């Protein structure tokens, strides 16, 4: 289950909350794209005898740059890697970029999944977030996609910020599920460091988040979507049957993937690498054949901890016997003690040697993970 992630570091407008790496100036697009192609060839050997099951164009906003750039990259990938026949090939789009022509071109060139960043259907919310589109465009883009040949559609929504009351949140979910979507990512608004959102709230120019809204709206989404044929398969992800994201699962299963483009991460044989998150420097280093990434080899404890963290988040259950295999005898004792405590606190349950979080546990899954960590 190997994958390729391509980071397209350009957006038409900067959302207040966003801490992903992107630039709103398009003048380096050509340079970055050609360097991404160089990088793909450099990293070819990492997945040389593997079959690629997923390609993901993320960002930034891949739909904001000319489609030919995307196709150039796709061609380079096809020439250098073994692709599976039923590969999942996703592109992230913003609603204001969606048109029937563009979707057709994407589809004709092998893209079979779209991840659409809607966030909300309400203008006041989109304004709070400083999105590049309005509610009407969000609806129109969904209409276009529903009629298109793309048969695997994800939509991102964000909840848990002050302009969105519970009723409106449900309304957003209702509108969305009225369309033929296969996968929904519901993210709780997070104030990342050094973002405009953090700054504007501190300066009292935007309303702050309220403490309990996130937890409440998490439950609202979970109730609503699970009653509407969606399976809640990871903290922030829902899908209808057979439409879990191959790409996401690659991340969470510790499968190998390479990431190309500024700020992209790779994970191959327990080695993590992350690229420079600066478009110009990235290009300069690639051209000069100099180091454009940092790396870290995960040790036994790191691997175990990530395993815990990701498996608790995904609801197929944490396999206790697999944990035991990675632990030393004295660590097993501590691990069991913690599990027992957590059971008593009524945040998880054990079934057939698998551990599942209940709803209360999901909401504090970071806290629970860290308790089970090896340090």
């Amino acid at each position: 289950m190997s994958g390729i992630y391509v980071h397209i570091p350009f957006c038409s407008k900067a959302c207040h909350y966003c801490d992903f790496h992107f630039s709103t100036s398009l003048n380096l697009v050509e340079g970055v794209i050609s360097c991404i192609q160089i990088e793909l060839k450099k990293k070819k050997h990492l997945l040389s005898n593997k079959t690629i099951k997923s390609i993901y164009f993320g960002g930034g906003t891949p739909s904001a740059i000319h489609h030919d750039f995307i196709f150039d990259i796709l061609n380079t990938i096809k020439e250098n890697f073994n692709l599976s026949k039923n590969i999942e090939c996703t592109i992230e789009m913003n609603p204001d970029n969606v048109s029937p022509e563009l979707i057709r071109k994407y589809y004709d060139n092998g893209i079979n999944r779209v991840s659409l960043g809607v966030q909300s259907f309400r203008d006041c919310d989109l304004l709070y977030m400083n999105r590049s589109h309005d509610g009407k465009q969000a609806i129109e883009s969904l209409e276009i996609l529903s009629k298109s040949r793309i048969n695997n559609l994800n939509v991102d929504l964000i909840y848990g910020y002050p302009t969105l009351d519970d009723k409106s949140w449900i309304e957003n979910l209702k509108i969305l599920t009225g369309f033929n979507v296969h996968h929904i990512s519901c993210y709780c608004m997070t104030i990342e460091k050094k973002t405009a959102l953090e700054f504007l709230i501190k300066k009292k120019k935007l309303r702050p988040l309220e403490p309990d809204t996130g937890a409440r709206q998490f439950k609202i989404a979970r109730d609503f979507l699970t009653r509407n044929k969606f399976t809640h398969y990871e903290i922030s992800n829902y899908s209808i049957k057979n439409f879990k994201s191959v790409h996401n699962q690659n991340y969470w299963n510790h499968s190998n993937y390479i990431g190309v483009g500024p700020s992209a991460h790779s994970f191959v044989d327990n080695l993590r690498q992350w690229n420079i998150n600066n478009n110009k420097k990235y290009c300069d280093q690639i051209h000069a054949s100099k180091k454009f990434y940092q790396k870290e080899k995960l040790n036994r404890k790191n691997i175990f901890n990530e395993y815990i963290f990701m498996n608790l988040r995904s609801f197929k259950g944490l396999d206790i016997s697999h944990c035991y295999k990675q632990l030393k005898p004295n660590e097993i004792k501590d691990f069991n003690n913690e599990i027992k405590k957590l059971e008593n606190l009524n945040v998880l349950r054990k079934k057939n040697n698998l551990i599942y979080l209940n709803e209360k546990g999901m909401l504090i899954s970071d806290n629970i993970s860290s308790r089970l960590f090896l340090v």
Partner: protein
Amino acid sequence: MSYSQKNIRNFCIIAHIDHGKSTLADRLLEYTKTISERELQNQLLDDMDLERERGITIKSHAIQMNHSFMGTTYTLNLIDTPGHVDFSYEVSRSIAACEGALLIVDAAQGIEAQTISNLYLALENDLKIIPVMNKIDLDSADIESTKDQIIDLLGCDGSEIIGASGKTGQGIEQIIDAIINKIPYPSGDSRGHLQALIFDSVYNPFRGIEAYFKIVSGSIKKNDKVKFFSTGREYHADEIGTLRLEKEPKEIINTGDVGYIISGIKNAQEVKVGDTITSCENSCKSPISGFEEVKPMVFSGIYPVDSDDYEELRSSLEKLQLNDASLTFEPESSIALGFGFRCGFLGMLHMEIIQERLEREFNMSVINTVPNVSYYASLKNKENIQINNPSDFPSVDQIEKVTEPYIKAQIITKSDFIGQVMNLCIEKRGVLTSQVYLTTNRVELSFEMPLAEIVFDFYDKLKSISKGYASFDYQADGYKSTSLVKLDIMLNGDQVDALSSLLHKKHAFTIGKKICIKLKELIPKQQFDVAIQGAIGSKIIARETVKAVRKDVTAKCYGGDITRKRKLLEKQKKGKKKMKQIGSVEIPQNAFLAVLKLND
């Protein structure tokens, strides 16, 4: 009297903290070529890391210099004194070993509390005082006013005051001249019975205790059989010598001189500062006067965070005790914290030092419980008990009378702050006993107050109300009757004995409330609500709640987020490991000292 005895000068330096004692000592060593500049690490006499960081001399040391003056070679013994009130007994013994003292006053600060208290100790011991006004290189130096203060204090002539700078070296030569010409040589009968005053000791892990002494009469020879007066124990003088930069072994040390003795003593308890060394065969009749057993003034529980480390903690404390005889400890147990030790300290600084040394030198993660002074209670059944621990506190209906230790405190401050300082001391149950103007705008206030009051936030408060312009010193002053209550803390209904504290009735209510508020700040959110209650007897006087974590989950989790988040959570887990689990509640180490960090 031998010729050489006349050429000995024993002196110490008395100064308030930071007035430049250590720096000036370095200059003297340099000037007399006792050390070369290359060897000179700044502030050589403070050789423990911790001292260097805090800029205070915790344990006394001594060093010998030679200096030629008008064709005669003099032996100058500088005896360093600890600079903090917690160690005032050790200061008094160091001073007793000298004939003269440099009184150093920072020209930018003027006279402060320890300048005065140490000066009195020196005068009591008939020391010749050489006044030195230091740091005259500073722009902020107020030379005229400082001079006036010194003249007022000593009744000396202005021309006797030496202006100096430890920084530039100015005045060092004059200081040396004054030491030689003004300080008397040590008296004492060189043919009399051996009498040597122990003024300090140091633990050497290879050779046992080194005791530092000054010979008051007679002489000591290598391989002599000697006896320590207070313990009556006898030893063989394996090695004796003088203290240069390194130890310098000698065959004999004569009257008036300062030296060290190594005799295979393994336990610091056997070497008591102030004790007299005499010879076994030719014992002196009486010891040198002024010896006291030092008694701990402040007690606190020390527990290992991980209860498996109990034995290791014991052995660490034993090792610490080898070079710090004033530390006492005995096993105690707490329902909340398991097995630990009740430790006795000379004061709050001493307590902090021990705690830090445990962490640094022994890598022990420990929990300190709220410190308290030692109380005495007379019970209705005529029994008398000592209370060093809140858990010793008897039930109220058994108590006839409780007494608590008092101190005499001196505070020197600017006259602008008299009002605030008085208010603070009165709030701390102090009684003003005198008020003396040192200059028109500096005043010395003396109080009698309970020692317990300075154990809590006294220093910090004094500093903040006086904007740093107040210095403080104190001496023990017996016991007085008091009205004491025990404040208990309950977490989710269970009493946590390690959080109990003994408080004066007057403060119990307000402090109890503040403790609960502070604990609410210090105890992190758990997966359930934590109720914090303060109780006196069966009466609940305060209640706070730490709300449960409701939500702690990463929303988006892409490639890069995983590593970042994992590192963050690993760090959290490390923090948790240092917490103590009591019942189901996790409590960080510092919560046990909450009472020392109360907000207003």
